[in-house]
């Protein structure tokens, strides 16, 4: 490979940035704001201000597959049951948007997939209704119960799940190091058609940084993160606590075989890349749609907006 693995991964990250699809993001935001407003009008007195969630809110989004999530927090006495809440929001959105979008019930959300617009672009939004755990306590504790529509994994007998979306967002706030590796693993997941949940990868990366000594350049950090996953994900007793609900061990969404497979996959990726640098392109491809080929005009920044920069230490200049 003619450039270092570090430089290559920087290009991978650059090509997956949301700034390349800013017009598309704007369309999503406009539609999101419209839906939030409609919900607030329809459920006046029963609802708190809807909040933005998902990968975009957590700054872990990549531009390959993208949607926006809205959490809709209802008051405890707004509905008798969580199912009633879920159905009510579905019915409302269906009536409102049935001519403009496919509206469908999902696991904990209602998905709206708008028909292609004049540019052929499809806007996707996930609306997650939740009911506060205790009457009038949401603003204080941010705790919500979500209705679980599609049953899966360990939640087979459950029809609801307690969560704290704000805690999930806060968990990744101000962790740019972790976010870079999350974006890279999400790029790997999408390009290699892996089915692991993004939330699972997110928690694995954060735990790796918390538990292991993750340092070095971008490749070295990614490698150490993957090594942590390889060495731990298949271990008995390994836990992955959901910051929104400490009783929810997210690793339990994978069975023993799936955990071993993830461990083996991480091992294989590391070995293959170490054997031949060029293999990194297979696992972490550049999004060619936005590959920087010619010199781009203007000053560049690495994140969506300006922020603090701390230059490296002990830098030498001289004649």
């Amino acid at each position, binding site marked *: 490979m003619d450039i270092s693995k570090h430089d290559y991964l920087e290009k991978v990250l650059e090509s997956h940035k949301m700034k390349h699809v800013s017009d598309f993001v704007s369309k999503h935001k406009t539609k999101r704001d419209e839906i939030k407003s409609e919900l607030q009008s329809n459920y006046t007195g029963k609802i708190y201000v809807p909040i933005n969630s998902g990968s975009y809110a957590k700054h872990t989004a990549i531009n390959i597959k993208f949607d926006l999530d809205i959490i809709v927090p209802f008051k405890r006495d707004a509905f008798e049951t969580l199912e009633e809440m879920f159905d009510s929001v579905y019915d409302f959105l269906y009536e409102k948007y049935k001519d403009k979008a496919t509206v469908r019930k999902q696991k904990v959300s209602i998905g709206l997939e708008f028909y292609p617009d004049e540019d052929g672009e499809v806007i996707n939004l996930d609306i997650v209704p939740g009911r506060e755990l205790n009457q009038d306590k949401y603003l204080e504790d941010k705790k919500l119960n979500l209705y679980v529509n599609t049953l899966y994994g360990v939640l087979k007998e459950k029809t609801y799940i307690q969560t704290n979306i704000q805690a999930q967002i806060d968990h990744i706030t101000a962790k740019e190091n972790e976010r870079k590796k999350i974006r890279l693993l999400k790029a790997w997941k999408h390009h290699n058609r892996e089915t692991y949940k993004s939330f699972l990868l997110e928690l694995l990366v954060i735990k790796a940084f918390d538990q292991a000594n993750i340092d070095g350049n971008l490749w070295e950090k990614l490698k150490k993160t993957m090594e942590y996953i390889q060495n731990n994900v298949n271990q008995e007793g390994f836990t992955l606590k959901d910051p929104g609900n400490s009783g929810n061990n997210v690793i339990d969404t994978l069975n023993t075989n799936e955990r071993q497979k993830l461990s083996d996959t991480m091992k294989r990726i590391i070995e293959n890349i170490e054997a031949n640098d060029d293999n990194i392109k297979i696992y972490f491809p550049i999004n060619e749609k936005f590959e920087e080929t010619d010199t781009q005009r203007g000053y560049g920044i690495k994140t969506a907006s300006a922020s603090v920069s701390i230059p490296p230490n002990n830098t030498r200049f*001289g004649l």
Partner: protein
Amino acid sequence: MKFFNQHKQVSLIIEETLLKKISQIGIEKYPYETGGFLVGYYSDDSMTLYITDYLLPHKQKGMAYLFERSIDGMKQVFKNLFDRQKHFYIGEWHTHPNGSCMYSSTDLNAMIEIANCETVNITNPVLLILSITEKQVKDFTFSIYNNKGLHPYE
């Protein structure tokens, strides 16, 4: 003072008084090299850089042909600067006593390291080199870093 970089089609604006202050610091340290950080902000369209100030490192080593600066004690300074004014680190400056204002391989390697640094949020840091003598600045050059190269402003 306004400078233009053809390579990136960008402008750089700095007050003459600020440049004079930096020059004076360089002359005072003659015959040793000295330097520091440049701070500022970009225009909304990212086509113009406004250099608003310089910062001196708390720790530095200056020799006739070498300048090494530390960031010890500087992190909070950068954070405060951004919190209060939204101004941020945009590059570096240093002197070449009795030398030209052309960058050296040491300078280029330093800029590569800076651009690749994970805690640096800009991809095109600038470098100001002042060629100085005992009493005056003979010349100076601003360059912009991009894709492992330094490209001077005119």
